[in-house]
């Protein structure tokens, strides 16, 4: 069965002043899969993610998300599209003036007509999903880095979006928390059919959750395909990354 394309990027070009960051980037992400965007520092991962989120104007090429061409969207349509997307930012990006619960409740109270008691139930449940129910009344400034990230994930999935973007979700998490976060991502994918785009370097995470790999190297796609194929890719940058991965994997098996 052929899966539906949820993201389609064609020949994307991006530059800051005279510095070309992305050139000729094309790839697709499919419904119900976890697509991992990989690449070294400065390979253009963040720029690509910000383009996917519609935060940068498109200079060249085409991005289509959930069947909508990003460049052609009117403001109303873009807001509608944002309702269907959850984003977990690297720093969490929770609003500092609101409590954790108010942060998670924000999209629910702004975009739905649910009664307040039901919203607080949903918020509490979503915080429970990421093991953060105890932080309900706390402010972001009172949380540790890992807790911030989990609370931010609760906000990203508040509206059960069909598409979730995560920018380095594993950074700052201990291995146990990371494993439970990965498990949660798998649950979101398997039980809700969520499509997930991850930008991460965490090797165990990639092994646990990735279906599809998009490897960026010097602003170009060096590899696109299933995880298993990526591990045997001949491209020097990809094989260098995955040789490290294989070793770690082997070490894990030996242990």
């Amino acid at each position: 069965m052929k899966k539906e394309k949820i993201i389609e990027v064609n020949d994307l070009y991006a530059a800051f002043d005279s510095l070309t960051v992305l050139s000729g980037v094309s790839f697709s992400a499919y419904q119900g899969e976890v697509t991992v965007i990989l690449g070294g520092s400065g390979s253009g991962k963040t720029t690509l993610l910000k383009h996917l989120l519609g935060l940068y104007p498109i200079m060249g090429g085409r991005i289509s998300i959930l069947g909508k061409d990003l460049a052609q969207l009117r403001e109303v349509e873009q807001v509608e599209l944002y309702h269907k997307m959850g984003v977990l930012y690297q720093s969490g990006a929770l609003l500092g003036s609101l409590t954790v619960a108010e942060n998670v409740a924000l999209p629910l109270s702004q975009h739905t007509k649910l009664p307040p008691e039901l919203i607080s139930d949903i918020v509490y449940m979503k915080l429970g999903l990421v093991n953060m129910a105890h932080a309900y009344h706390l402010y972001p400034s009172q949380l540790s880095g890992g807790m911030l990230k989990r609370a931010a994930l609760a906000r990203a999935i508040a509206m059960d979006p069909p598409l979730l973007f995560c920018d380095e979700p594993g950074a700052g998490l201990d291995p146990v928390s990371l494993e439970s976060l990965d498990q949660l991502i798998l649950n979101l994918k398997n039980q809700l059919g969520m499509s997930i785009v991850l930008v991460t370097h965490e090797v165990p995470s990639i092994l646990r959750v990735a279906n599809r790999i998009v490897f960026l190297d010097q602003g170009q796609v060096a590899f696109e395909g299933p995880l298993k194929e990526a591990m045997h890719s001949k491209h020097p940058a990809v094989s260098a990354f995955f040789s490290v991965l294989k070793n770690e994997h082997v070490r894990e098996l030996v242990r």
Partner: protein
Amino acid sequence: MAKKKTDQDVLFSLGEQLKLRVEGRVISPEGRLNFEEAGNFTLLVPRIIRGRKLRHVQISLADIKQIDSAGVMALYHVQRTMARRRISVELVNTPVSVEEKMLLFTTKDQLPERLTVQGGFLERTGEVVHHFFSSYIFGFLLLASNIFYWSFADLFRSSARRKGEVVNQSVLIGVNAVPIVVFLSFVIGFVIALQSSGQLKSFGANIFVVDLVVISIMSQMGPLITAILIAGRSGSAIAAEIATMKVTAELDALKTMGLNPNRFVIVPKLYACMLTMPFLIVLANVAGMTGGGLAANLYLDITPEIFMNRMGDIMRNKDLFTALIKSQVYAALIVLTGSFYGLRVERGAEGVGRVTTVAVVVSITLVILADSILGIVFY
């Protein structure tokens, strides 16, 4: 919400995506129980149960086509609110797809209570007073003593200072403020002379406009206007800069590099402000008297020569000396208040805005208070 009666059952249509079929004590939602429909569901179902005075209800989930987290929570919500009225709500005929979601979206226990301890009136008053003294008065004095210590200790030790920082800050706080200080002082001097010219003319006391302008500008308006402008301009900038540095952990970084943030960040600003403030006040005085002289010439026919001669008679060294002391007090108050509130920032971006506002309001208030105290002392 449309209601349609059939032979045995009642059909409620909630929104476009969900219908409720009620047969005896069995309620069957049909369609999608999602973010759009969950709100109506939680409102309508308890109403149906109460309207029919049911004690035991079954919600049959067999015909639910799609359910999301809001739908699951709506089911739990109805169950819980009904349990409080001793009405049991049982979920039956749950398809596997719905059951999976219900297992995923589950809450273990009740919402945690917000921890607030409310004391009595005396207790709360005591707490407020204690907080005011311990964190504001004591905190301000502590910061002031620390900064004064370092500013004295480093005064003749140029190696301890960041190279070029005092000059840099002097440009930001002092030199860049020259145009606005000169312009406003000129306008105020002009207006003082203009306003009084009518009164003086009617008494034939034209020449006293010089006394009025010189004394009011030299001893009061010049220093005060300058201090208020600098408090608004640089006090806010100092508070915002230090608050942002604290929020982004730059101050922590300085500390862990073995640098004292007060000494490294605040002391150069204090030097710069104390150094440039006397010059700004002198410029403000000159501009104010020029403005007054222009108005006197235009409206009272006092020539610049007469104005200058009279000015020489009434100017006192004491006024200059007072202005110098005032400038140092105001400069210290502005820098210390800005830094104090900058360091007290909490909760990210919004906190920076809040402390900046408070810093400006408090430093202007303190400047005016200090002005009245010094005015009485040097009267």
